[in-house]
């Protein structure tokens, strides 16, 4: 039996205006109109090309950057097409309506851990549609009814006569057919690929240096550009006072003033870089705001702290918080903060622009939203978007780095320089420029109050998040709803599964300076808020003398997927045991637990730590994730491990620092990221509850910092309320 496609229920976006997938926990999943999905799924020719030799080329609306999305879509399409996923070659699709699958068919982006869940039905339908067309073409060729035909991977078979035709021989005829409006889909029980731990595509190419990233793009006759941004964002280059000297250096073609930066163009990037390192620039505040000369991250934290207690905009509310707090026997309070973070993806920003003789523009740029980049490129080049061919090479890591962030993207510089020189130009940002003009995870601050009754029950829970998120910065306050709530600052304070008789969560807007660009960083608001809230919950447990694991279990709906997940992670780790206790290697260890509900998935994390030389040592992380259902459990485990690693990295030591209004952390020596010497063992279990499909790229991140911090408290009694941990000397010594 085959079932008909049903409407895909998923946590949706608010509408066409919001093109970034910020999950809005607390809002019920709602049915998404199937219309757009169906319409796009019949556009088989836009997505699929089957070569005569049976090789299948698939154009992916999503960009591959290590998360395995090329493989996931191949796996889904291959299931319904009845093909071998290993025969697929997947590339990133050009901009265009055919590839807008999100926000009801109005948006396209790779983010919000939304790729598979937003396109699962689309790609199944697309694969089934293509299969039906191949069967129809085979029926015509064999002169038999389509109903008498079946498929085996890669071919149509006619059992009655024993004849079989490979897809490659049918593809041309099939492509000429009208796609059927409705096709049956496989029953989940008949899946042979979906749910299997298939290998990812492109692994060998990535192990042998054969992937062409944006930074590797080579265009005939191109020049190379190095840029130097203003030390303080907002300043403009009034003059390059030694321009003649620079132009006389080997290989240098020209020197340019750009918005907020200068560029040296040369025959090689190294020569451009060497020249720009010698540039003497007179910077001036010619237009717009400039970073204050005394701006620091701690000054910004001071601004957020000064807003503490300001009535905020309601994000979530249940019961009467005022009465509940007033009637509480005890109220405990705490403040938490987390720093600015850089994406620190290994491939720095770059872009190549080439104006062609026919007036069109070819552009190569790392990006997570091709239509937006095409539009901004067209504006910069004064072209129609259709005249801009946007090429989206695989990403050398992204983690939210490559959305359209204005000054954080290199393509507008490449366009300007290609125009000025009349030659193709590739701009590469040095690592120092990359750190200086990233769009940072905002420095964040939250306050908590819990009201406890005489028996130690939590009767009131109040949380407030302060600041400005990338939603506000890049989409404007008007996109935040009424009252305005910036989900990119609030998620993780909102959307928690715990039940409190009275609860209030509010958002207090406090702007960051315009010169500090703000971006979406892996797990976005969850990256700090689950640390804040899950640690505060342990403070509550401590205040009432309860075990943190038991307190969580008591606050969760029973039965339910959260309780099941808590039980799963406890079982994985050999049963919940907080410690501290002595490990066989002689170290004293303890454990902490945390829950997170990010991007439609549920995650439970347990960390085991010890202390050494004033630093936390994380030995093991046990992570149970419930993504509802799985397309590729191996990829999920890999993504959870990857996400956990970046969460630990941030918690241990990452913080963007400013001095005199300038970014002071400009390379990996001053912005330390996790290396293998501090990588813990990570154990992942995928629990498929059958709930609507959630995301997998980000959800592994947010549970790690709080589970580690809670373990540190269990071990040493030190309550870390400010990230990173490196600010605190851990342990007695």
């Amino acid at each position, binding site marked *: 039996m085959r079932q008909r496609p049903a409407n895909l229920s998923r946590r949706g976006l608010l509408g066409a205006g919001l093109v970034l997938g910020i999950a809005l926990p607390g809002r019920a999943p709602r049915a998404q109109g199937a219309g757009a999905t169906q319409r796009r799924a019949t556009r088989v020719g836009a997505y699929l090309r089957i070569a005569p030799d049976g090789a299948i080329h698939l154009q992916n609306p999503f960009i591959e950057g290590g998360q395995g999305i090329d493989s996931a879509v191949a796996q889904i399409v291959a299931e319904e097409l009845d093909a071998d996923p290993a025969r697929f070659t997947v590339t990133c699709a050009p901009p265009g309506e055919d590839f807008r699958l999100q926000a009801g068919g109005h948006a396209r982006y790779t983010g919000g851990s939304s790729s598979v869940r937003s396109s699962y039905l689309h790609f199944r339908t697309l694969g089934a549609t293509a299969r039906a067309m191949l069967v129809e073409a085979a029926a015509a060729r064999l002169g038999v009814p389509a109903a008498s035909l079946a498929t085996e991977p890669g071919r149509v078979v006619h059992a009655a006569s024993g004849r079989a035709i490979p897809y490659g021989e049918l593809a041309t005829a099939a492509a000429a057919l009208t796609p059927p409006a409705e096709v049956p889909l496989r029953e989940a029980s008949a899946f042979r690929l979906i749910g299997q731990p298939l290998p990812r595509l492109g692994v060998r190419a990535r192990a042998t240096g054969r992937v062409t990233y944006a930074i590797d793009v080579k265009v005939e006759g191109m020049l190379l550009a190095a840029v130097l941004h203003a030390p303080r964002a907002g300043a403009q280059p009034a003059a390059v006072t030694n321009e003649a000297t620079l132009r006389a250096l080997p290989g240098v073609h020209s020197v340019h003033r750009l918005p907020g930066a200068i560029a040296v163009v040369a025959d090689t990037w190294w020569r451009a870089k060497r020249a720009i390192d010698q540039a003497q620039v007179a910077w001036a505040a010619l237009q717009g705001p400039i970073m204050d000369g005394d701006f620091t991250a701690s000054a910004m934290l001071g601004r957020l702290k000064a807003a503490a207690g300001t009535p905020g905009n309601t994000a979530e509310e249940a019961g009467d918080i005022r009465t509940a707090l007033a009637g509480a026997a005890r109220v405990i309070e705490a403040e938490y903060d987390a720093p600015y973070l850089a994406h620190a993806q*290994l491939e720095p920003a770059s872009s190549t622009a080439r104006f062609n003789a026919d007036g069109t523009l070819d552009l190569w740029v790392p990006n997570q939203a091709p239509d937006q980049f095409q539009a901004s490129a067209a504006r910069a080049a004064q072209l129609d978007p259709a005249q801009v061919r946007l090429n989206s090479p695989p990403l050398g890591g992204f983690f939210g780095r490559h959305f359209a962030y204005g000054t954080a993207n290199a393509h507008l510089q490449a366009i300007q320089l290609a125009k000025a020189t009349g030659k193709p130009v590739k701009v590469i940002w040095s*690592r120092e420029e990359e750190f200086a003009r990233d769009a940072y995870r905002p420095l964040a601050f939250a306050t908590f109050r819990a009201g406890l009754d005489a028996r130690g029950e939590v009767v009131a829970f109040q949380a407030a998040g302060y600041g400005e998120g990338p939603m506000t910065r890049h989409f404007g306050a008007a996109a935040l709803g009424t009252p305005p709530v910036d989900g990119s600052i609030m998620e993780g304070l909102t959307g928690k599964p715990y039940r409190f008789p009275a609860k209030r969560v509010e958002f207090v807007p406090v702007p960051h300076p315009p010169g500090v660009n703000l971006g979406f960083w892996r797990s976005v608001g969850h990256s700090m808020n689950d640390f804040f809230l899950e640690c505060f919950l342990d403070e509550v447990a401590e205040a009432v003398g309860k075990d943190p694991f038991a307190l969580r279990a008591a606050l969760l709906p029973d039965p339910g997927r959260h309780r099941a997940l808590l039980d799963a992670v406890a079982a994985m780790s050999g049963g919940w045991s907080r410690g501290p206790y002595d490990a066989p290697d002689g170290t004293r260890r303890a454990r902490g637990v945390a829950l997170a509900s990010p991007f439609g998935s549920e995650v439970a994390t347990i960390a085991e730590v010890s202390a050494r030389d004033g630093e936390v040592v994380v030995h093991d992380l046990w992570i149970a994730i419930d993504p509802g259902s799985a397309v590729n459990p191996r990829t999920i485990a890999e993504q959870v491990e990857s996400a956990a690693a970046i969460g630990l990295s941030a918690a241990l030591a990452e913080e963007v620092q400013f001095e005199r209004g300038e970014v002071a952390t400009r390379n990996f020596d001053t912005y330390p990221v996790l290396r293998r010497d501090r990588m813990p063992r990570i154990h992942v279990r995928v629990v498929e509850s059958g709930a609507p499909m959630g995301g997998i790229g980000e959800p592994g991140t947010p549970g790690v910092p709080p589970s580690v911090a809670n373990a540190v408290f269990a071990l040493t009694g030190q309550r870390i309320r400010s990230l990173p941990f490196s600010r605190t000397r851990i342990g007695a010594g």
Partner: protein
Amino acid sequence: MVELNVNGTVQRVEAEADTPLLWILREQLGLTGTKYGCGIAQCGACTVLLDGEAVRACSITLEAAAGRRVTTIEAIEEHPVGRRVVAAWVAEQAPQCGYCQSGQVMAATALLAATPRPTPEQVEAAMTNICRCGTYNAIGRAIAAAAEAG
């Protein structure tokens, strides 16, 4: 004009003598498998072999590399240990985004060529390259598998 032995072929390179080997490989010789990550020998994305030893090509000058054998990721499968390392990398599915992985593979190849059965401490000392995707455990399994296969 400097003569450079890269992947067994002597190439004539026209560049300033203090140009980092990384940019000679990438820009003059078209060998873009060696990656630029930090430029200050921190991240290891540019790791190549110089007379068989792992070095960070961003911090070795053309002059210093001249007259020595440079091996890059493009020739890794011609290296008997490198071939094993790549096979293990693929089997363990170590790469995610892949950007750091050519450097990781080169570092692992140098390690196993010098120390066929490394202790965990030797692995830790040799494998200091950054992976922002956090594939360290998969890399560790791949190194163990490659050592086992040797």
